[in-house]
């Protein structure tokens, strides 16, 4: 065992951790703070990590900063839910609104590689119409990009992550077969399939970012089932083990345990670099371009915390929309028990899904769509679920005795963007003196109708699959978007279709914050596809002298 990554810099001294070898290192190019690099990127998750790789491969000089540690999963990850909480963003955030969000283990990662280090690996494409939701479907806002272009980038990302999935996907336009074969279905997935078939709707093995065959030094998934607390075998194709090794190999520098507190600008209003805290002191990295990729809470927090006399409402905020339109996805579930042993701790948690209600527009009393997936779970989460039902004492223990027969169907549902849902700055400050975020969330009536529809339908599906003692989990959400939305009009968006700030031309945003609408699928594949597109757009703009 080597040093503790949470306390000790690892990406320093001309080398970075080799994530494929315990104790191993790979060489890393380094830049001086006073050397203006082409791009400094704040955050190394699905957006920033992917972009760092692509920009470096396009020949730009890149420094990517992350507040989290640089793990080597093979040596740093234990098979233990409580211990692995070290992967989550545990700094205090205040939540309010009618439906206060659960953060921490839900969504936010604090690691090099971001929350992809503990994501559930579900890798779905958006339905084409969602990119023009306002025009084609009558709600939300249009994206300033064409779906065909994004679908081309989906293919690049699916190849980069060796997504395992079915040969034929039941919904939407034709797509190429997935690079790796689908995984065997686990117990919860088989129950989902049984329910869907009983109700006469399509289902599919989930396209998922964990290996079903060897790849380089990584072994196939061993169905350990601890995906959402960090994969200790490297089967999971997180940003940490895919894009970042490529980024390092092509000359990007990654700085771990580096918390960015402020973006600076010059008298002309152009960004000049970022102030960041690392190894006990504040430093400043100069850069020709700054990319913010901190996800939908930290991105607006940084822009708002960077306010100056010239930009008193925060950077990139002439529209007033930085931090507004925070849009999550509803993540309600039905749970029940079945006669057979399910053993919901085995295999990736969501190995089967149906997108029926994403692609069916009739029979709905709401805008938007949802998919639902089979859901496995580990004991602490299972106990937490029963606690959320209000169970304690002997009733809790009795309910938990059925753990190995428990199965869930869980939605990823489309919430509608609302300006009142927002990230603002609280008056409280963190240990570095930075104002902490206040996250305000309330469902709208449409969100509630979607959730009600999903719960009724999934109850039918679970009952048809042999489920009994079914109960609803009514208050969970997943993923976060929208707090720096993209658009065609500088009055109603924060960035344009290239993810470039309307106000500060050398400031870019590359994460889920830019989504104007969220669809009914997990966002990571789309965040990575957008990052690939942004890198190509930057390359094209640079070639024309328009950076």
């Amino acid at each position, binding site marked *: *065992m080597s040093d503790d990554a949470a306390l000790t810099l690892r990406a320093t001294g001309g080398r970075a951790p080799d994530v494929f070898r315990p104790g191993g290192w790979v060489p890393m190019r380094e830049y001086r703070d006073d050397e203006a690099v082409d791009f400094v990127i704040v955050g190394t998750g699905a957006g920033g990590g992917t972009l760092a790789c692509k920009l470096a491969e396009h020949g730009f000089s890149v420094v990517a900063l992350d507040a989290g540690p640089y793990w080597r999963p093979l040596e*740093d*990850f*234990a*098979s*233990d*839910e*409580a*211990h692995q909480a070290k992967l*989550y963003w*545990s700094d*205090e*955030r*205040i*939540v*309010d609104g009618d439906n*206060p969000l*659960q*953060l*921490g*283990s839900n969504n*936010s990662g604090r690691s090099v590689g971001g929350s992809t280090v503990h994501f559930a690996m579900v890798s779905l494409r958006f339905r084409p119409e969602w990119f023009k939701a306002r025009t084609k479907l009558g709600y939300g806002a249009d994206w300033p990009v064409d779906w065909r272009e994004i679908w081309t980038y989906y293919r690049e990302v699916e190849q980069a992550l060796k997504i395992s999935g079915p040969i034929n996907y039941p919904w939407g336009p034709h797509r190429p077969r997935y690079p790796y074969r689908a995984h065997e*279905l*686990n*117990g919860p997935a*088989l129950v989902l399939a049984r329910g869907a078939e009983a109700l006469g709707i399509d289902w599919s093995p989930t396209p998922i970012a964990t290996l079903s065959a060897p790849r380089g030094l990584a072994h196939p*998934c*061993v*169905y*350990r*089932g*601890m995906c959402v607390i960090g994969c*200790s*075998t490297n089967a999971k194709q997180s940003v940490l083990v895919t894009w970042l090794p490529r980024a390092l190999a092509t000359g990007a520098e990654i700085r771990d345990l580096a918390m960015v507190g402020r973006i600076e600008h010059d008298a002309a209003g152009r960004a000049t670099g970022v102030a960041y805290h690392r190894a006990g002191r504040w430093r400043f990295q100069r850069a020709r371009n700054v990319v913010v990729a901190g996800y939908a809470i930290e991105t607006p927090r940084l822009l708002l915390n960077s306010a100056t006399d010239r930009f008193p409402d925060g950077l990139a905020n002439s529209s007033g929309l930085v931090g507004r339109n925070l849009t999550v996805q509803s993540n309600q579930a039905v749970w029940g028990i*079945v006669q*057979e*042993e399910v*053993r919901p*701790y*085995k*295999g990736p948690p969501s190995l089967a899904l149906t997108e029926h209600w994403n692609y069916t527009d009739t029979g709905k009393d709401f805008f938007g769509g949802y998919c639902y997936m089979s859901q496995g779970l580990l*004991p*602490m989460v*299972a*106990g*937490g679920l*029963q*606690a*959320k039902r*209000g169970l*304690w*004492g002997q009733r*809790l*223990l*009795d309910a*938990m*005795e059925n*753990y*190995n027969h428990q199965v869930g169907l869980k939605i990823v549902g489309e919430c509608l963007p609302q300006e009142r849902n927002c990230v603002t700055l609280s008056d409280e400050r963190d240990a570095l003196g930075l104002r902490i975020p*206040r996250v305000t969330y309330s469902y709208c009536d449409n969100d509630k109708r979607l959730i009600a529809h999903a719960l009724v339908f999934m109850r039918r599906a679970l009952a048809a699959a042999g489920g009994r003692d079914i109960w609803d989990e009514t208050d969970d959400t997943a993923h976060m978007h929208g707090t720096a939305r993209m658009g065609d009009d500088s009055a109603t968006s924060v960035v344009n279709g290239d993810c470039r700030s309307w106000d500060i031309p050398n400031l870019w945003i590359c994460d889920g914050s830019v989504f104007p609408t969220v669809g009914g699928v997990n966002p990571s594949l789309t965040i990575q596809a957008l990052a690939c597109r942004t890198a190509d757009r930057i390359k094209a703009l640079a070639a024309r002298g328009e950076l």
Partner: protein
Amino acid sequence: MGERYPGYDVLNKRHTPSWNEQTRKVVDERLAIDPERYTFCTEDEWLTLKAVCSRIVPQPGRRRLQAPLAAMIDRKLQEGVGDGYREARLPPADEAWRRGLRAFDAEANARHGCVFHLLLDAERDALLAAVQQGAAHDPAWGDMPPALFFAKRLLHDIVGAYYSHPVAWNEIGFGGPASPRGYVRLALDRRDPWEAAEAHSGEEEAARRDNARVG
């Protein structure tokens, strides 16, 4: 009801390919927690915390190993590692717990004339249920909503601590740590030989035999 997984002990897998060194280390640390050691709580708070934990998760007394829930909560509060969010209507975790524990004593005093840990089990349960339903109004709660504290802090923390402990894994038949070996049999009603065997009516001894071989 008898045990669902008779004779299953996840710790018997400690030296199998399902556990690696990293995992042994963190589970060993949890098992080594002294159930009577506290540093965050005052003595009064500690007695109340232990009494609350004993009713939220009533662990069978016959068990040799018990999850030291109160000590686990105390330790987490002492370390100050948060969850990453807090409801605006709740104070930070350490303050919420102190205020909540004192409020339990205040409520107990008002209703029964003694502190919480001196109540009978049934009285403790009734008071816990009252707090869960928001039917608690002692000034000791201050502006902290009792029902919210109960749901988002008390239950969340105690139940989470319990299911992080191997005794709970045994009780529910969880396979436990699984790196590097993982699992092979994924289908319904299929059990790897290193997983807990469930007792079916009349066949408890067969399950006990299988569980003795888990490793």
